[in-house]
């Protein structure tokens, strides 16, 4: 059963059960019924975030070994981008027929929602193989607050309204075997 949990977490790019719960927001109920762990959606991992659990705490010893402490999963980092894509798709939009300006996106950003996600899903096995288990493991550049030429991500792609969308962190994709440079 725990092997099943591992597979589910890998498939959905999550590092913990807590991440999987968050990921559920992007799933329809029907998508989640085929797999015990995704259907169950109970999260012991939240204990690591100092969240008090009730009955789920009893599972701790069985689930603890599959968590990666303190790291940001691929899924969590990209969820706001994928949520934006989901909103477009749920009203019948697609990569081809969506007017990006309506969503406050430029053409490149809009295309990236589909192409970028596909590239990510294809590339992550190679990155994991090379030891990059989560996005937190990738090298990154932090831009100083003195720099003015910051990129700002569109509001539709931000996690919440409180975020100003300023990009002060840039992760760098390393060259690893089996990873396309495109």
């Amino acid at each position, binding site marked *: *059963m725990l092997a099943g949990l591992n597979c589910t977490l890998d498939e959905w790019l999550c590092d913990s059960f*807590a991440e999987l*719960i*968050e990921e*559920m*927001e992007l799933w329809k109920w029907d998508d989640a019924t085929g797999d*015990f762990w995704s*259907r*169950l*959606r*109970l*999260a012991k991992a*939240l204990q690591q*975030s100092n*969240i008090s*659990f*009730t*009955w*789920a705490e*009893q*599972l701790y010893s*069985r689930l603890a070994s599959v968590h990666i402490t303190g790291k*940001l999963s691929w899924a*969590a*980092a*990209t969820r*706001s*981008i994928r949520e934006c894509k989901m909103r477009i798709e749920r009203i019948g939009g697609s990569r081809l027929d969506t007017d990006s300006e309506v969503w406050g996106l430029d053409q*490149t*950003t809009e295309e*990236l929602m589909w*192409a*970028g*996600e596909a*590239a*990510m899903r294809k*590339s992550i096995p190679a990155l994991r193989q090379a030891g990059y288990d989560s*996005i937190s493991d*990738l090298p990154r550049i932090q831009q100083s607050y003195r720099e003015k030429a910051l*990129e700002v*991500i569109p509001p539709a*792609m*931000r*996690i*919440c309204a*409180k*975020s*100003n*969308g*300023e*990009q*002060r*962190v*840039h*992760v*760098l*994709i390393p060259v690893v075997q089996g990873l396309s440079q495109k």
Partner: protein
Amino acid sequence: MQQYFERVDWQGLKLPSAERRQRDSSKSFERSVEVWKDWIHLKKELVTSQA
């Protein structure tokens, strides 16, 4: 993929509201009937495997 990751909302991820949201979703999840049914099933399975 590099460009894709450049659209990650790092500022938003640092906000405390991101953690609060995760906590809220877990609580509403715990209360659902479906989860209770699965929990009972899982408990039985764990007891069996421990025996």
